[in-house]
Structures are given as structure tokens and as C-alpha cells.
């Protein structure tokens, strides 16, 4: 799908949670999406801290449907980079994400996206931040050895007490100083926080690798394009004007769209073709 001329658009399988992965791929081919970001989650893929299922079939399916895999988005499940030192959750989190990096490689993509969920509201923020920093450094080092880039960004307040804002993401990047750490912008989260998309583009420039795009309103985010209160066409125009060279990924709210994901895809395509 290249409706927005120069922008590289990718769809995601998040809202196909109720259907087999083959159904998602068949729809992408039929609807004209040329690229995807694979959301690594059941029922489409099993991965936990002990390992993962054989991905050969998955890889073959993606190739057969002639869609390009641009990144692997690791589902956070109950793992957290903020988990306390020495805890089981921490040990399993690092192991899980290492397996995700391996899977990304096997699927022949060198970008792996992590959601920084799980900082507690009543925990010590500086300790949790340091916990996150340390594990992210370890994962970046491991990914670098595998020629992979780690992509992290702002996360909704409902999912974490930290890394919700542009300032926090910038600080994390500055503190980490890892070449293979790139940035993702979640448009809904940024707009909920009253941030400007221009600021994200200007501050991170070429390091802004992925823009997660969806519509939203006060009561929900991840809505189909045009079904919320966000200035989506203005944002798309801005990304084009600024020659954004990363990926614009359509990340829908799973629960809102999972019963009829194809309908959501059609709404998005219709919106994009008008823009």
C-alpha cells in the first residue's frame, strides 16, 4: 500500500488476534498492503522465556504472500524491563527478549520493537528507571552482536508509570548511548500527553524509526483512521513534508477491532487513499 506516496506504510497483525496468521496474510495481499510489522504473539507465534516454536513455516508464509517484514514487535505479556534486580520476572524478561531477537533474525528482519510496559506507580522511579536502563543496555549489546536494532518509544500511561513522554524517551536515549537503539513514536500516547509530532521528528530526526499511527479519543486509542478525534491527515502531511524515512505502522487496538479486523483494514485503506 503506497497511498501516501513517499511514506512507507505497514500494517500489523495485532487486531487479527482472533484469526490464524494465514488469514491475516491473505487479507494483506488482497487489500494491497506490501509491508507488515509482525506482532509476535499467540496465537500467531509462541515465545516465552524458555524458547519459541519453529518459525520456518511462519517465514515461508510471509514470503509466499509477498509481503515485506519490516520489524518484529515483541508482545510484552507480563515481562517488564523495570522488574526488580534478582526477581524471577527480571530473569525471565531478559531471556524472553533475547529469544525475540533470535526470532527476528530468523525471520530476516533486523528491527525489533519493545514496549516498555510495567513501571509501578508506587515503586521508586529512579530505581525502576535504572533497572530498565541496565536491561536495555544488555539487550542492545546482544542485538548488536546479531546485527539487530532495538526500537523503543513512549508508552501509554495505563501500561507504565514511566517512559510516557518525549522528555523521558529522550533522556533514556541519551543515557543509554547505544548506536543500535532507535525510537518509536506512538501517536495516540503523544497526543494524549499534549505533545507535538513535529517535536518528535525534530528531536530524533533519523533515529525516529517507527511511527505507530491510529486514531483516538479520550476514552480509547488505537481506533481506525477517521474514527476518532485526532488530526490524522495533518500528521500524515507533516511526515511527508519532513520526508520521514522510517515506517508508519498502523497499530490498532486489539479488542476494538478483533471481531472484524478486515473491516478495520478497509476503513484505514479508504482513509489513506483519500489523504
Amino acid at each position, binding site marked *: 500500500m503506497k497511498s501516501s506516496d513517499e511514506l512507507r506504510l505497514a500494517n500489523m497483525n495485532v487486531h487479527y488476534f482472533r484469526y490464524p496468521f494465514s488469514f491475516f496474510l491473505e487479507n494483506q495481499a488482497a487489500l494491497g498492503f506490501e509491508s507488515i510489522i509482525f506482532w509476535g504473539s499467540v*496465537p500467531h507465534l509462541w515465545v516465552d522465556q524458555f524458547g519459541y516454536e519453529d518459525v520456518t513455516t511462519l517465514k515461508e508464509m510471509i514470503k509466499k504472500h509477498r509481503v515485506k517484514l519490516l520489524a518484529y514487535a515483541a508482545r510484552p*505479556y507480563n515481562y517488564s524491563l523495570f522488574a526488580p534486580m534478582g526477581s524471577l520476572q527480571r530473569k525471565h524478561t531478559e531471556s524472553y527478549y533475547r529469544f525475540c531477537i533470535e526470532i527476528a533474525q530468523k525471520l530476516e528482519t533486523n528491527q525489533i520493537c519493545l514496549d516498555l510496559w510495567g513501571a509501578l506507580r508506587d515503586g521508586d522511579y529512579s530505581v525502576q528507571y535504572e533497572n530498565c536502563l541496565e536491561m536495555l543496555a544488555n539487550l542492545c549489546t546482544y542485538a548488536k552482536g546479531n546485527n539487530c536494532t532495538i526500537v523503543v518509544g513512549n508508552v501509554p500511561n495505563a501500561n507504565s508509570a514511566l517512559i510516557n513522554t518525549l522528555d523521558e524517551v529522550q533522556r533514556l536515549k541519551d543515557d543509554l548511548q547505544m548506536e543500535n537503539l532507535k525510537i518509536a513514536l506512538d501517536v495516540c500516547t503523544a497526543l494524549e500527553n499534549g505533545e507535538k509530532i513535529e517535536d518528535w521528528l525534530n528531536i530524533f530526526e533519523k533515529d525516529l524509526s517507527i511511527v505507530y499511527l491510529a486514531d483516538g479519543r479520550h476514552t480509547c486509542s488505537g481506533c481506525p483512521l477517521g474514527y476518532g478525534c485526532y488530526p490524522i491527515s495533518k500528521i500524515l502531511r507533516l511526515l511527508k513534508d519532513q520526508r520521514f524515512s522510517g515506517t508508519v505502522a498502523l497499530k490498532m487496538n486489539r479488542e476494538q477491532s478483533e471481531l472484524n479486523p478486515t473491516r478495520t483494514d478497509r476503513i484505514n485503506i479508504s482513509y489513506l487513499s483519500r489523504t
Partner: protein
Amino acid sequence: MIKRKQIAGMNQNYRQYSFDYFLESQVMAGYQSVELWLGAPHFWLDSCSWSDCKTIRQKTNAAGLAIIAATTPSGGAFQYQYGAQEPFHRKRSVDYFSNGVRFTAELGAKIMSINSGWGYWNDSFDIEFARSAEIISAVAKVAQTEGVMLALESLTGDETRTGYTIDQIKTLVDVVDSPSVYLMVDVVATRYSKEKTQQWFDVFGEKVIHCHFQDGDVKNPSAGHYVWGDGEFKLEEEIECLIHNDYRGYLTQEICGSSDPRNDDIRNMRVLSRFLED
């Protein structure tokens, strides 16, 4: 009257807070019983291991709270579910839920909540149903050994095609045919399917041993799980139904999605207190 100790709080709503904060909040709100949701960040449970139960029991009991039931998290934010579609996923799910039963037993709780799970939306009913029956049967065997009662709840029609009505749940119970499988009413799920709590007592009688009991919507059925008073359910009518059926089980307050769970538990207990005796 319903006794105060029959009302149980739940930590699922406190996923952005520590377990200590949850316990403190339960005491502040006036709960005497809790149903523990066995997920991170409070606990760890997977297909191979689970958290140290001794510490959890000690902390909970020291706060003056009784652990009356447990929920092994499924679906949503977890890899595991009772209707897992793929063979590899099913094996891991059986191991995980079996460990959930063992975790529950070690915590000293008698009840573990379960549901039917779900299949692919384009699966046939029979295939989807058979997978759920297979997993629940395997978990029920472990429950029998451990002396844990599995309380099967219905889900909503948006979550499953095979476990959202009384008839479907009855068929599932009949097929599994285990002395460890009992029933629970989740008032949000049953209302979503336009069922009344009385219908569950009519069909299952004393096999109804547990409830997830919170407010929800009627005009536009939704995921609900609100603080009592924030939705549209008739609390007095629900309580009367329980008393009429001589229900002696627990009423877990499975409130979800709160930005301030402590305040919500306090507000919730304030509403319920009008119907409770100590």
C-alpha cells in the same frame, strides 16, 4: 444478609502497583477476604514454576486477609488460554494451568476460577469446543489430586463462541465430567448473554460455588467490571437472588481498569456495606 467476609477483593486491578500496596488498600477498604490473581508483577507463574507461596501467605494473613480463591491469568496479556488453538500452545497451557492449580493449593485456597477459553473466530464450533474440553479435562485431573475446586465461569460472546451461555457451559461441564469442576457466575458475562443469576441457580443448583460480582452495563452490554454504583446493574436484586438461593460462597469484586484502584475499592465497599453484616 451477606457476611462481610464473603466479599473478596482482587489484585488484578493493581497491576501497576506492588502487592504490598494492594494488601494495604484491601485493609483500608474493609475487606477480610481476597481472591488472588496469580500474575506479574505480584507473582510469577509459568509452565515450569511458580512463586514462593509461603511469603505470600504470610504477608496476606499478617494483613488480616484470608486467601479464598485464585485466578490463573489467561488470555488477555498472557500466552496461555483454555481453548489454545495450536498443539504446542495447548501443551504449554495445560502445564501452566496445572501449575496454577498447584499454586492455588499451596496458597491454601480451595477454589481456582477458570473459563472456556476460545478458538479462532473462523473455526467450527465443534473443533473449538473439543480443544476447551481437552484442556479443562487435563487441568481437572490435577485439581482432583490437589483438592482444588475449579469454578467455571462464562465469558462474553465477544470473547468466545463456545462458552458464553448457560447451555454451552452445561455441555462443557457434562463432557468434562469431573468431580472437581463447579460453576461460578460472573454477573457481567451472564448479563452480556441476557441471563439472570437465578437461571444459573436453576440449572446448576449447589454446584454454583463462586461469583465474580461487580457492576456493569445493561443498555449497551460491555466489558463492564465497574465499582458498584458506576454501572446499571440492580445490586439489591442481585443480593436478594443470592440470599433466596442460600448462597454461602464468596463474591469477588473483579473490578478492572481503574486509574485509582485503592479509591475504587473504598468506594465499592462503601456501597456494598449497606447489604452486609459482620
